[in-house]
């Protein structure tokens, strides 16, 4: 899913070309759906978030600009925000129905397609303290709140907040190098 491939499709979408939008959907929907499914756990909610995200993408395609990241990053952002809204709206509590894993999927191997930015991100995440990384992963992939991370990692709220805050600071330092 390269920027060179997605950007023309998004431009055509902004011009109201439905075929381009259909193709954009076909290429990107499995990625967006996977992200929101991991957060929301329930298929019907993940489908709702995906639908809402693509409706927004159709209407807002013209407001995309390079400063917002790659087209895929921009689309993932829209989908994640929608999933976070739905979690709040449906008062989804994540403390019980966690996946066995606490982190990103293990099958990210050298064989999957990774951009240079992703490789750098993975490297910088790897450099974080294990606790910081785990707390950020739980919040990012599973959509956990501070309080839910507290229950999951069995540490006090202040500690969790500080792991996340300091982890994010270190991440920024590493990424902006």
């Amino acid at each position, binding site marked *: 899913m390269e920027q060179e491939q997605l950007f023309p499709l998004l431009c055509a979408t902004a011009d109201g070309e439905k075929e381009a939008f259909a193709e954009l959907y076909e290429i990107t*929907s499995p990625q967006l759906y996977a992200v929101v499914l991991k957060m929301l756990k329930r298929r019907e909610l993940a489908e709702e978030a995906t639908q809402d995200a693509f409706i927004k993408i159709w209407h807002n395609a013209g407001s995309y600009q390079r400063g917002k990241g790659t087209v895929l990053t921009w689309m993932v*952002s829209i989908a994640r925000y929608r999933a976070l809204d739905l979690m709040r709206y449906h008062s989804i509590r994540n403390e019980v129905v966690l996946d066995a894993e606490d982190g990103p999927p293990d*099958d990210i191997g050298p*064989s999957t*397609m990774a951009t240079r930015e*992703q490789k750098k991100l993975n490297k910088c995440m790897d450099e974080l303290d294990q606790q910081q990384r785990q707390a950020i992963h739980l*919040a990012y992939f599973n959509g956990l709140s501070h309080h839910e991370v507290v229950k999951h990692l069995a540490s006090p709220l202040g500690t969790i907040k500080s792991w996340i805050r300091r982890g994010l600071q270190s991440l920024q330092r590493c990424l902006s190098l």
Partner: protein
Amino acid sequence: MNYLAEERRNALAAEYVLGTLRGQARRRYQKLMMESQLISETTWLWEQYLNGLGESVPPVSPSSAVWENIQSRLGFTDSEADNQKVISLYQKRSRRWRTMTGVAAAAAFIIAVLFGTSEPPVTVAPTHIAVVNNADAEPLWLIEVSPESLTVRSTAKLTERADKDFELWMVPANGQAPISLGVLPEDGRWDRATPAILLRPDIAALAVSLEPPGGSPTGAPTEVLYISPLVSV
């Protein structure tokens, strides 16, 4: 610029994007973004930092109802002509799969006989298998699917291609476009949790395509090499 203000701005943007900024604070932040270009730009920066994580989650195809609902909510379905054009995009890609899956179904029986009884016992017994053969009927990969795990083993007959990758696809029975299951290992084993799409009842076959390194650049198979039915055991 005030260092503390910058640190605070980054901290808020980061937790907004991460999702840990909640409730009233989240709503206040959304209002701030509308008022301040600087805050919006800081948020975009953090979207770029963090949302690469989301791009590493293995893709899962949503059901076709999702696309149908999007079309109907956007009013695409009002105009019959436009609708046809959008639908034809899918059909163009899927037509050749229908003919191929006929051949695949015919081969199912033979494979079931060959492999159905000779499998050694494994920890989690597969419920379905597929054997991907080359044109000389030599097996290249053995694929076993259980509700928990997907195992792929390549055989000695497989010739590695340094400049290419092989990608595995699920071909839906309804004639829709194939769905990627990932790039195949060219040596050794591939063990992973079973993707949800492999548990669907409407699977026509599995297919292997030849792709540039890293897998299909388009989301559709570049050159289909082999096709194999997924047989229950």
